[in-house]
């Protein structure tokens, strides 16, 4: 017994926009009969706006509900906005789906992406066409359900997936023979490794950038605070992670100066610049 939301039940009981659109401007497909669910979506686009949408679905309750609500979500919207819709948006709009059924929302996203890939709005430039570059075939990870590496990558990115089981729930990959579980784990590892590296890169500052940043924070953030109490601070020198400062005014000789240095100056710099910073009063 699946725990379907009221909205899911409403949409499979009374699906909206069922059928085919004659003279559709864009048609997208996802899934297959052999795999147990498939979806065809038809779009009518005028002046860059989706004016009508219809669908045909072979699938379970949540597959029909995902397709039905998707048509409601896109009718009347500009193509540029429709292109931004993810599977998560579809699932959220339905009031959530059981984890094992998330792949139904992914199928909706896939069909939409497929439709818009085939559609070229005004000003759309297909670089591959211009340079005559041959399209590389997409790498299939799960042979049983024909799931590509790109789809798995998108599912991780859009939904923050972390385990092979989650990937199976969202894309069906590894849901049959399970031979591709290792490959999927590799994709997850690669994704998060890359993300970590990108974050690290953002964080690493050159020595010059570091000095400038420390100086700016002392001048703009720390000094004004101390001035409120009639004191002040100046930067004397920076030696690696050691930041040498001099307290002035009321702060100089204050019995709480050590506390000021450690719990305010040092912690502020650690938070904003580098967690290894040590502040020393000279």
């Amino acid at each position, binding site marked *: 017994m699946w725990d379907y939301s009221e909205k899911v039940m409403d949409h499979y*009981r009374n699906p909206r926009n069922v059928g085919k659109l004659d003279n559709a401007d864009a048609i997208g*497909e996802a899934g297959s009969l052999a795999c147990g669910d498939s979806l065809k979506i038809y779009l009518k686009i005028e002046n860059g706006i989706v004016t009508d949408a219809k669908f*045909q*679905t*072979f*699938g*379970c309750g949540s*597959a029909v509900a995902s397709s039905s609500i998707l048509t409601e979500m896109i009718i009347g919207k500009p193509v540029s906005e429709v292109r931004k819709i993810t599977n998560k948006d579809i699932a959220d709009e339905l009031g959530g789906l059981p984890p094992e059924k998330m792949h139904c929302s992914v199928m909706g996203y896939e069909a939409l992406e497929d439709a818009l890939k085939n559609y070229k709005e005004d000003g759309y430039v297909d670089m591959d066409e211009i340079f005559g570059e041959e399209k590389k075939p997409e790498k299939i990870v799960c042979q049983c*359900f024909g799931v590509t590496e790109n789809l798995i990558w998108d599912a991780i990115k859009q939904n923050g997936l972390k385990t092979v089981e989650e990937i199976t729930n969202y894309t069906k990959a590894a849901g*049959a023979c399970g031979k591709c579980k290792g490959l999927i784990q590799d994709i997850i590892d690669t994704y998060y490794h890359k993300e970590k590296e990108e974050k690290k890169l953002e964080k690493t500052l050159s020595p010059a950038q570091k000095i400038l940043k420390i100086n700016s924070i002392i001048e703009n953030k720390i000094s004004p605070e101390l001035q409120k109490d009639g004191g002040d601070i100046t930067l004397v020198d920076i030696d690696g992670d050691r930041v040498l400062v001099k307290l002035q005014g009321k702060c100089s000789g204050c019995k709480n100066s050590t506390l000021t240095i450690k719990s305010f100056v040092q912690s502020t710099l650690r938070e904003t610049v580098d967690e290894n910073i040590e502040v020393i009063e000279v």
Partner: protein
Amino acid sequence: MTNLIYLDNNATTKVDEKVLDAMLPYFKDEYANPSSMYDFARGSSNALKEARGKMKDFFNAQNEKEILFTSCGSESANTAIRGVLNMNKNKKHIITTKVEHPCVLNLCQTLQKQGYRVDYIGVNSNGELDLEELKNAVCDDTAIVAIMHANNETGVLFPIEKIVDIVKTKNPHTKVFVDAVQTAGKVPIDVQAMNVDLLGISGHKFHAPKGVGALYVNSKTLITPLIVGGHQERGLRAGTENVPYIAGLAKAAELAVDNLNYEVHEVKRLRDKLESSILKTVFNARLNTGVANRVPNTTNIGFEYIEGELILLHLSDIGICASSGSACTSGSLEPSHVLRAMNVPFTSIHGSIRFSLSKFTTEKEIDYVIEKLPGIIDKITMLSPYQDELNALRKLKA
């Protein structure tokens, strides 16, 4: 909520009022542990003895010592298979079928990892067992053949007498375990006529409650216990006997024997009425079992180019309970292993629905399903992206 029409009796059944009445005294009054020495334990101890006698009759076993009470069909199967293997440590070969219940299939896969060789015998497109393949598989090393009496999804009966003959002719020492969970109460069971060594059943499939089962173990067949502990069940199944449930199981068995005639004729008539009507009125319906010999209560019908879960959801909305071998209902992403083993076409495997009746099913209920189902199928068929294929099929049928 509309009236409930329960057509999922291969999943579980309603407990018969008479069964419940037979159980109640052992909750309220006769609650003694049957192993105790005082007079008060005589009631429960007698109930146990009586139940064993009734099960002996139900199986047509030679004596009461051949009856073991268990907690369910899965325990019966696990006890039988593991028990025989433990007693035949030098033999490392098992034979079963591709369409067994998961309690046998998953156990065999576990045993494979522990070094056993397992042959999984296939079936034809009607779901009938390949007896030639079975014959070729039996060898000197074969410790046990585990085979079902009837399949839970299709209701197809396997010819047990013939199977035992084939196995024993090639290797008289090989033991045969029969999973009769889906036949108990539906067709006669006679362990002596079948010449089987072990046979397991589950109470809740024939109007006893969930949580009780039985295993017949021929007196010439030695097994080890699965659950080790006290002396209960002659040391073959430890744990204080579940007296009320065992009394219920025995009562259900007794009622089932009395009801066999009704099952074979009346339940079958209603099943056939439902089946032939659907096949006649729904153009994309297809009987998955063809002409195979089946238990009287089951029909498995595939609806082409539509998906099973959606059919079940719409049926459920009007109070009809059935089940599907579709991937979406199980959460396993793959359609039923039974229908796949039968090579049911991929156009209809995902839209396969099982209706399973019981003695409580009425003609009025069947007529209601016959009235409502075509409209539901029609509504779902309209959603399908395969309209061209459906139109071709419609023409073909007309």
